């Protein structure tokens, strides 16, 4: 190929020129003003969206949509934050609605009220509050201003499998329950679940009747049902440990106990698939509380399922309107969620973004989207049902023309529509993410039994309350004048460069002079890179660790407050995360060192087919981390029918020793070993290093040893290992530095939500990521980073100190 190119130089040049011309022509042609959209994922679900974008471009020739998809995690907070700070903003973003206020409170989004007021009279497609479900509209409103136009409005209801209810009719009747209707209140739900749960002889649950948190309900849903606000009316007090919330949590735990306890139930539910493999859709689960997207899944993957949808069961008192619920208006309610389209403050093409929002959320735009999406699904042999929308008008349109025709599915759709107007929503607060995480963690801790429900809720309440206090208090803190650190930084920069330059003219002995100058010259690339790209950001983060800085608004000075909180109020989580990385690095690093060295020693022999073996060992480290996380999540699926590891375990260890297969990432004691295992799979990456090391050994030493009659074991210990010691040293130092800062795997395995069972997948770097980008506490995150920095430094220093005893270099300096 290369030779061919060389022989046809003229041709390649012409081709190159042509490509260049084409490229510039393309650039010139893109005259219409770009409307930049970030967030929505592209894929099989977005065929309709793509059609709508094409229609928009055709209808508004002055605009051109540029879509940047973000894949799995939705909008990446890191991306959005850097973009806002750097002033390179998209015009529209797709944002989970309940976090809109987190951003709006810090001035990141454009209020949309003025745009609505301007267009409401002239343009009938303008989104106005009267067209939308109030809950969805209010959720995107912060302090009286609207920051995002709601798109979807998923709400939750009880799905029940009529066929299973009929199959168990005699047992249900025996327990005094009606098999022809779903449970309506909590006590009934427990009773139904008890009857519908199937256990094997030893009492092990085979099929749970009802898992409280499978689907999409969380503690939040049960709190809504129990009329238990998580935040006080004025939004300044967290009420997570109040009596009604505890009742909700207690109910969840009770429901878990019926299906074998929290641990067993989460192990079971972690085997459940999504979409086509949703156990409710495949008819394996009698009941679940989930959102309306389930209808779409049933239409697509389980068209024969005999099911019904009913409002989620409510507390008994609420059902009978007694006690606290004496004057309750709506007995059956739901919780509404979904996403919104928002315009960041400072977007360059606000008009274009606004035009897109209006078009996309108009009947015309939606009709195009749904038609195209339905065509795509049908082309793939599946049917399609649109999800619930925040706009009443659009929901009616969907119901009329696109919702499934079959009575069962239609009835389900109607239940969701009926509930939407009685929906509640998560409080509009600037600490929405913190509150969300707190309720997730409280359920996990109480369920795992590491804390009592009361303690777990109190801890969560304290954490959220601190976030609230910090935010409210922040305004009274002194603003930081960035000029001082900037000037100090500049002086430091100049001084550093000057000091380094002065080294060139230092007086060395005559012998040393040339060498020293060459040495300084040789390291110049690094020194420049260090001063220009690295030192500034490092010092900046050190400086910000003494401030309260949310990135979006100016920093405020808090002195050692962040460090105080880290070792005071937040000690538990931070120490837990430290314990986790110590565990994983302490066992994982030596283990992977040992593994890769032994593989390299094996590969260093003469054998047939070595290149193939080498490739086999090396390939795993080439798989991108996103894919390897997905791969390992399948392999370590606790269900032996789906997970490769447990399928092998069941047929070998399980049958020989009678040991039950572990639940891997969903069991607290197995989550960290799973992480180590995942890391070990990539240990083959290290063999390149070892093979390189083994090949720079001088063979003469081995020959000499052989002549002296040393055994091969002796040769290994006395010649090979000492000669390899610099590389072993490198591997341990770098391995520990990497492992103590581990982040990516934890983030991908938990898909950025939660921190694994009992926080076992929390690492300091992951912790600081959530603090910095989830809770907008970059100053605090910087403090964590610097504490971690000191720990890593200490570990490395110890290794350097100890290395003098065992690492042999050629030069003693």
């Amino acid at each position, binding site marked *: 190929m290369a030779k061919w190119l060389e022989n046809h130089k003229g041709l390649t040049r012409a081709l190159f020129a042509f490509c260049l011309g084409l490229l510039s022509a393309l650039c010139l042609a893109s005259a219409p003003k770009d409307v930049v959209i970030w967030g929505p994922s592209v894929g099989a679900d977005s065929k309709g969206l793509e059609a709508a974008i094409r229609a928009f471009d055709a209808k508004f020739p002055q605009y051109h949509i540029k879509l940047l998809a973000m*894949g799995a995690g939705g909008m990446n907070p890191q991306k959005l934050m850097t973009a806002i700070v750097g002033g390179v903003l998209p015009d529209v973003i797709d944002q989970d609605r309940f976090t809109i206020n987190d951003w709006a409170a810090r001035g990141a989004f454009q209020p949309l009220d003025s745009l609505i007021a301007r267009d409401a009279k002239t343009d009938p497609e303008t989104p106005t509050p009267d067209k939308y479900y109030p809950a969805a509209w209010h959720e995107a409103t912060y302090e009286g201003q609207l920051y995002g136009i709601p798109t979807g409005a998923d709400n939750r209801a009880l799905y029940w499998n009529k066929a299973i209810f009929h199959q168990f009719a005699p047992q249900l009747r025996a327990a005094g329950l009606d098999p022809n209707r779903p449970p309506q209140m909590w006590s009934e739900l427990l009773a139904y679940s008890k009857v519908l749960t199937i256990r094997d002889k030893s009492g092990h649950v085979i099929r749970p009747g009802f898992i409280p948190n499978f689907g999409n309900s969380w503690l939040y849903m049960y709190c809504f049902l129990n009329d238990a606000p998580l935040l006080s009316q004025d939004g300044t007090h967290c009420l997570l440990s109040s009596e009604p919330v505890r009742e909700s949590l207690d109910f969840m735990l009770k429901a878990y106990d019926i299906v074998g306890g929290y641990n067993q139930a989460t192990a079971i539910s972690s085997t459940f698939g999504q979409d086509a493999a949703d156990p409710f859709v495949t008819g394996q689960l009698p009941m679940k509380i989930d959102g309306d997207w389930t209808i779409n899944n049933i239409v697509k993957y389980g068209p024969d399922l005999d099911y019904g949808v009913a409002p989620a069961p409510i507390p008994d008192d609420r059902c009978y309107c007694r006690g606290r619920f004496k004057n309750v208006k709506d007995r059956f309610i739901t919780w509404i969620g979904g996403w919104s389209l928002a315009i960041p403050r400072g977007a360059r093409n606000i008009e274009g973004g606004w035009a897109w929002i209006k078009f996309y959320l108009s009947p015309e735009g939606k009709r195009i989207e749904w038609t195209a999406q339905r065509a795509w699904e049908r*082309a793939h042999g599946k049917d399609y049902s649109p999800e619930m929308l925040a706009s009443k008008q659009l929901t009616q349109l969907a119901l009329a023309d696109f919702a499934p025709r079959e009575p069962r599915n239609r009835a389900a759709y109607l239940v969701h529509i009926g509930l939407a107007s009685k929906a509640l929503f998560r409080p509009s607060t600037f600490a929405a993410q913190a509150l969300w995480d707190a309720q997730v963690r409280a359920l996990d801790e109480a369920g795992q039994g590491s804390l009592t429900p009361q303690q777990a809720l109190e801890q969560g309440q304290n954490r959220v309350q601190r976030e609230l206090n910090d935010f409210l208090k922040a305004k009274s803190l002194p603003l930081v004048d960035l000029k001082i650190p900037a000037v100090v930084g500049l002086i430091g920069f100049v001084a550093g460069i000057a000091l380094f330059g002065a080294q060139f003219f230092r007086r060395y002995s005559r012998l040393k002079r040339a060498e020293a100058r060459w040495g300084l010259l040789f390291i110049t690339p690094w020194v420049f890179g260090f001063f220009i790209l690295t030192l500034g950001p490092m010092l900046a983060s050190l400086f910000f660790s003494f401030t309260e800085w949310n990135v979006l608004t100016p920093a405020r000075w808090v002195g050692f407050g962040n460090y105080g909180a880290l070792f005071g109020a937040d000690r538990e989580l931070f120490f837990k995360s430290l*314990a986790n990385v110590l*565990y994983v690095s302490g066992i994982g690093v030596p283990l992977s060192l040992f593994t890769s060295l032994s593989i390299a020693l094996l*590969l260093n022999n003469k054998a047939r087919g070595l290149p193939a073996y080498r490739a086999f060992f090396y390939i795993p480290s080439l798989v991108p981390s*996103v*894919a390897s996380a997905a791969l390992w999540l399948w392999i370590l699926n606790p269900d032996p029918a789906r997970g490769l590891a447990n399928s092998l375990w069941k047929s070998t260890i399980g049958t020989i020793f009678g040991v039950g297969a572990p639940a891997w990432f969903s069991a607290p004691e197995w989550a960290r070993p799973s992480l180590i295992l995942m890391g070990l799979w990539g240990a083959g990456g290290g063999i390149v290093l070892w093979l390189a090391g083994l090949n720079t050994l001088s063979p003469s030493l081995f020959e000499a040893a052989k002549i002296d009659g040393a055994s091969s074991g002796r040769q290994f210990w006395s010649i090979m290992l000492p*000669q390899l010691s610099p590389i072993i040293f490198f591997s341990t130092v770098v391995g520990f530095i990497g492992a103590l800062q581990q982040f990516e795997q934890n983030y991908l395995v938990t898909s950025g939500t939660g921190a694994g069972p009992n926080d076992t997948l929390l690492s300091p770097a992951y912790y600081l990521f959530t603090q910095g980008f989830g809770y907008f506490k970059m100053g605090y995150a910087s403090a964590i980073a610097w504490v971690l920095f000191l720990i890593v430094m200490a570990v490395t220093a110890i290794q350097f100190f100890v290395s003098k005893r065992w690492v042999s270099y*050629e030069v003693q300096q």
Partner: protein
Amino acid sequence: MTVGFAFVFKTLAFWVGLLLLVGFVWRLASRGARSVRLVAGSLACLILAWILPGLPALGDGRFHVPLFLPIFPAEYLLALPLLVGFLRALFLFLFARKGGFALQGMICGPATLAVVRIAGQSTAKATILGGSLSVSVTACICLALLAVCAIVIMGVVQRRASSKLFLRRFSIYAGLVAGSVVFGLPFLWMLSTSFSDDREINSASGISWIPRIQVTVPFKDPSKPYYKAQSNDQDLEGRILSTAANGDKLLDVVRPIARLGQTVLVPQSLLEQIPEPKPEVFLQTNEGLKKSLDLETLPNGQHRLHIIGTPDSDDVLTNPARLTPVLASGARFQNYPDSLEFLPEDTLHGLVYLKNTLIIVLLSVIGAVFSSSIVAYAFARLSFGGKKLLFALLLSTMMLPTTVTLMPQFMIFRELGWIDTLRPLWVPTFFATAFNVFLLRQFFAGVPLELEEAARIDGCSVPKIFWSVTLPQVIPALVTVAIWTAVAAWNNFAGPLIYINSPENMPVSYAVQLFQGQRSSQPGLLMAFVTLSIIPVIALFLVAQRYFLQNSATSGLGGR
């Protein structure tokens, strides 16, 4: 004696007994010698383990093999070496009066306490090393049989292999094969899924290594004809929606997937009816199962079928409950073209991503090898003022989590006007990263000094010595740096996501995550794309192998 103590004794007795037994088997096999002492010792220990109380009777008819300690947080394992270090230092300091160890003790002691303290914070109770294994009678018999087999095999091998060489070669191959099976299994699994239907991957019908796919039969459906057409030099497939006034047909595009849902006006003359692959299903009728083709799903939920063997225009309507899909073992190759078609059309089905990745990889490798080799050489071999301090600074740049330096770094790149270009991804490699410098320094430090001294005496300048004497000695290490840099640049996903805003500037690693949607994912396509995307890296590795396996150390040192 508490239950805990009994358990510890029992555990020790059991494992010591087992070790002695293994020793006996080993001796029997390797030398043919019997040792009464070993047998007696092991039996005594095992019987002791049997009769000692310790584990609560579980009454499941199985023998419970104790595992180390009943409750033993694995974190304590970390504290153990530190504790040993501390005790050793204490002992030496107290009795041998060696002052040098005081520091070691000062480090190890508090470190032990810290580890134990932190471990105490975590609430993990049951661990891998705790609890007990329950062993059934069959398992015991199997183990005994296994031991007998081992004895026999080892005896045979001993007799046949006159030299040690045979055993050595045998164990090397055994190790290689076993290792590559363990390491290759997940990868093979990935390959297997890349050829599977998504529905098959998600199904709970057990692990199947050989994918099963839906059988399809090409069929010309008379009531919904399927056409092939040419439009702007692109082959399109689809159905006719309507006819325009001038006789042109409005084609609803089905393939290529990237244009699905679009409509195109095509002159009648360019249309050609082609058969369309239709899924084969079994239809349940009164006369038994009938092989038929599932033509389409109607809005009312019914399916329109064509029963094989009847005239083409005969359709049957039925409800889906009476259908079972026909599956066959086979690979779904379609995932591969589909995964490329899945990518937006204006990226030329991923070619633009590939171009960007190649630019980043190429420039990063050049930058990393060039800059880190000279910097590393200076740190390893040249002496200058402040070297130690600078090296410590260099290492410390690796230790701060990048999450907190991201924001300021982003500002610097913005000031340089580099946002939405590839530059933030490769320019930094020209300033030598700490990781590569440290690695190469270790290799430079291992190069024999005599070579350089000889060159120096001959009057060579420092750059000349570096270039022609020392650098050739570490070529394998340079290749290592090149490979690692290339792989890291290839897979770098976070960097592009932050610094690049336009899809046309994104690299391949960005495309990988597009296959995981918010609520739905396409594992088959994802794995097919990942397989495609790592093929170039595997090729690179196979090519680079030759270089890092050259034993460069022989080149300059013939006479030593």
